[in-house]
Every structure is written in structure tokens, then in C-alpha cells.
């Protein structure tokens, strides 16, 4: 069936060749992966832990003992 492609349409349904990954390219990027993911995860999880400890030390403990 005829289709008038919208410029944005490729984002929805890319032709199958577009995203086909050739092994050489994959092997090339796999030399760097996952340095970026590690950096991102460390940063976010580190901030998470920091936020937890800030709440613990500056909100929770000052509100006093219960038990």
C-alpha cells in the first residue's frame, strides 16, 4: 500500500537496513563500552547514596529517638 512518509516517520519505523548492525562496527564500539555506562551509573548511584545519607544525617537523626 502506498505510503506518504512523514519526515518523522523513520523514528517510528526505520527501514530495517538502517539499524542493522555490522559486526565490525559492534566490535569497534565494544572496546569502549561500558566505560560510559559505568561513568553514568557510578554518578547517579553515587548521588543516590549521598542523598540517602544526607536525609539520614540531617533529617532523620535530628528528629529524635523512637522505639
Amino acid at each position, binding site marked *: 500500500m502506498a505510503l506518504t512518509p512523514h519526515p518523522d516517520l523513520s523514528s*517510528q519505523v526505520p527501514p530495517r537496513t538502517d*539499524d542493522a548492525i555490522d559486526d565490525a562496527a*559492534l566490535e569497534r*564500539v565494544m572496546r569502549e563500552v561500558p566505560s*560510559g555506562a559505568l561513568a553514568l551509573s557510578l554518578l547517579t548511584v553515587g548521588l543516590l547514596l549521598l542523598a540517602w545519607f544526607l536525609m*539520614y544525617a540531617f533529617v532523620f537523626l535530628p528528629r529524635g529517638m523512637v522505639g
Partner: protein
Amino acid sequence: MGERAVTHARRLTLAHLWVAFAAFAVAAVLGVWQMWARSPLPAPYLTAESYFTSVTAHGVSMAYVLTTFMVMGFGYYVAETALGRPLPLPRFAWLGFWLGIIGSAMTAVTIFAGNATVLFTFYPPLTASPFFYIGLVLVVVGSWIWCGLMLWAMLDFKRANPGVPVPLAMFATVANAVLWLWTTVGVAAELLFQIIPAAFGWNESVDVGLSRTLFSWTLHAIVYFWLLPAYIAFYTMAPQAAGGRLYSDTMGRLTFILFLIYSLPVGMHHLFMDPQQSSAFKFLQMSFTALVAAPTLLTVFTISASLEIAGRLRGGKGYFGWIAALPWERPMVLATGMAFFMLWFGGGGGLINMSFGMNAMVHNTSWVTAHFHLIFGGTVVIMYFAIAYAIWPTLTNRLPMSPRLQRLQLWLWFIGMMVMTLPWHYLGLQGQWRRVATFNYSDPIIAGWGPWVIVSLVGGIILLASALLFVWNLLQFHSARAVVATDLRPIYALAVHPPERVPAALNGFALWNVLVLVLMVAAYGYPIAQFFIIDAPEAIVHRVNGRG
């Protein structure tokens, strides 16, 4: 793939998902009105009864109808597309669907007749009309049929393909089915042995400590039942949508196994502030709760790495350059990014909730409401949207002309959720409590909360706009011009190293069921048995469906 008609499983999926999203749209309207009622602005139709009727309907629609039908519908889709085989026993699937419909309708009628103002988490010794609970039981029974069909489909595949790993999407779906079977035991026992007999008037009293403990069994794991479709999308759909590969198939399997194990023996963290459970068992379950963070943190890394592959393939450089290179214009990628962003806040709040004595700081405050709206309403539901956008073309063989409105809808949802829940976190820390129809804004402390409540109401209005736009977007698929089915790309991601063989432990659930049993006996054995040992006093039933 070739030209293909809409198969049986796809009709099933469409039916389930439309029910899910219809309930969602209704609940979104009610949610906004509830926030209006709680704000200093005068809201129409507000009475004590109308408010709690609305809260009950909102909770039931969002937490039981939207989720159960979404999980079931998506499960049927995965069973067919990931296994590449027709769904076995589709008649039983339709039976489950109609049971769910009848149950939902029965529940809805009792709620809107004003006979079920007990919210979706029940609160015995308050009891609603028995048909409220029976309706919910029917929904659960329908979902049990789904669980059976998912297990059946997987075993069928294994028999036909000995030694071949079950595809990750299906493995995860079955993990959810197994999880759900375990999960529903607690609430089923509470409803069948305690609440429904009381609602019918066969019992005049109820052991509240026991019923709360049984409900806690269900109360946390059910959240993971709702959550897993989002994680299935993270692992099996987002890397493909971004144009990359899944970093590790093994970690995907492990993640879903960890969810199965650690979402069950942890429910008592909802009872931290309850007198009827001891601090030692609360500590025990807290330790397991802390470990529920593990599969999420593993996912954060594995999915980041998978997206990094895509970003680098598209020319991204450096530690963070790959992020900018990702195809953010694709709804699945955009939703995944937003989902993780909301997960950071929601998960951070969750880490505080589960921290034993620290729970006292926030228990039953708006903080908790904010936490689960961010995780469920944010992370999970935005992935439900993305899943719908990803599979609707294959369900209808049609495409809308532009995904622009889809992106707008996702952005509205994300912004609305942040605007709504960040003030709730703050207000919760100030002590704003939950499940309240109206606040006393003449109290100077509470008056200071007013502006923040109005800000969150604005967030709610944005969310409603997004919810309606979502339904509009889905309708667009049905009226759009048809496209050739061969243009539809496969939606499931390949792993960098697709598994050729996996140990039985990563290809089935026998071992993990044994371990879950061990943990459940350790975590819930004595805490349930104690009610029979100490002969706990019961409370007289208070019926909300007419005095009698």
C-alpha cells in the same frame, strides 16, 4: 515476517490493553479531582463519601484493572511474538479476559453505588459490599488463567526446542506469572477466609493483625507484578529501539530472577509502624527489602551499557557523549530515559521508606504517596505508554502520520509527574498525612502547605492532559492509513552475545521456587503463626454498605 493477518493473540492483546487504558483514563480524571479537593481551592461535588468513593475507584482502576489487564495483554503478545508460535488454548485466555471484565464491572458498580468506601487496600474491620471483593477475586482468578497459559506456552516451547534458551522477553514474562501466583496467595487468604465472610455477615469479627500481615504478603510483590512489563521493555525493547544491542542476556535473566526472589519475603516493610509485628522480623524483612534494590541497580548499569552501544554506533564519543547521540526522537528511547530519571527519585524515596526505624519519618505521609506515584505512575506507566506505542502498529497494521504527539504526550506525563510528586515529598517530610479529603487550612502550619498543594494540583492537570492525549494517540492508530506489514521491524533486542545454551537455572524456575519457599517460611512462618498462638483479640466488623 511477510503480510500477516491480525492473529488471535493480537486480538486478545488489543482487547486487554483497551480495557486497561480505559480504566486508566477514568482514574486519571478522578485523581485530579481528588487533588483539587485536598487543595485550598473549593472543589465541586466534595463530600466525605464522594471523596473516598473516588479514592477507592482511582486505586482499584489504576492498581488492579490497568495493571492486570496490561500485564495479561502484553504477556499474550510476548508469548506469540517472542516464541514465534501461536498462543496455546486461546479460549482459556478469553475466559480469563471475561472473568476480569465481569469482576471489574461488579467492583465498579459497588464502588459507585457508594458501597465500597474502603479504598483499594481494604482496612478491615471496615468491610464493603461483598460484591466489591468478589469482583476483585474474579479479576485475580482471570489473571491466574493467564499465569497458567504463560507457563504452558513456555513449557511447550521448551518441549519443541530442547536445549534452546527461552527468549528473554518470554522468560521475564513467565517470571512475572510465577511471581504473581506467589503474590496473590496472601490477599486471597485474607479475602476468602476473613473479609468476604465478614462482608456477608457470616462473621461479626475479624483478626485485624492477621489480615494486615496477610495483605502485606501481597502488598509489595504486587508492585513488582505491575513493574515487570516496564523492565521487560528496558531489556528487550529499548536497546533495539535505540539501534543497539542488549549488553548482557544473562544479567537480564538474573534480574528477573532476583525480582522473583526478593519481592516476596519483604512485605512487612509496609508494617514497620504496626504494633503486631516484632522488630526482629521487621529487621529480617528489611534486609531482603534492601536487596530488592539490587536488580534495579543492575538494570541501571546493564541498560546504560546497552544504550551506550547504540549511542557509540551512532557516533557518540567520550564518557557521556553517547547519551546525546541516542535517537531521543523515538518514543521508546525517550520513555526509557524519562523512566530512569523518575526511578532515581522514586527509588531514592523507596530506600528511605524501607530503612527500618527511618520509616517513622515518612510513614503514611504524602512522601509515600509521592514515592509510589513516581515509581508506578512515573517509571512503570510511562513504559506502558512506550510499549503501547511500540506494539500498536503491529496490532493494527497501521501507523499514525507522526509520532510527534506521542513525544508530546510522554513529555507531558514526565513533567506532570515531577511537578506533582516533588511537592508531595516535601509536604510528607513536613508531616502532611495521607488519605485525607480536606485539610484544615485555617491552621497556620497547614496553611503554609497550601501553595505546594496547588503546585501539585497543576502537575495533576498536566497528567490528565497527557492521559487524554495518550488515548487520542492510540485512537489515531485505528483510523490511520494502513501500512505494509513488512515495514514493521522486529521489536526485540538481540544481545551482544546471544545465548546459545543456558543452565537450567536461567531457563526455568524450579530452583527459584524452592528458594522462594524457604525464604517465605523464614520471613512469614512465625509472623503468621503467632496470631494463632497468642489468640489475638478480634475487632467487630464495621460495614460501610448500609447499617445492619
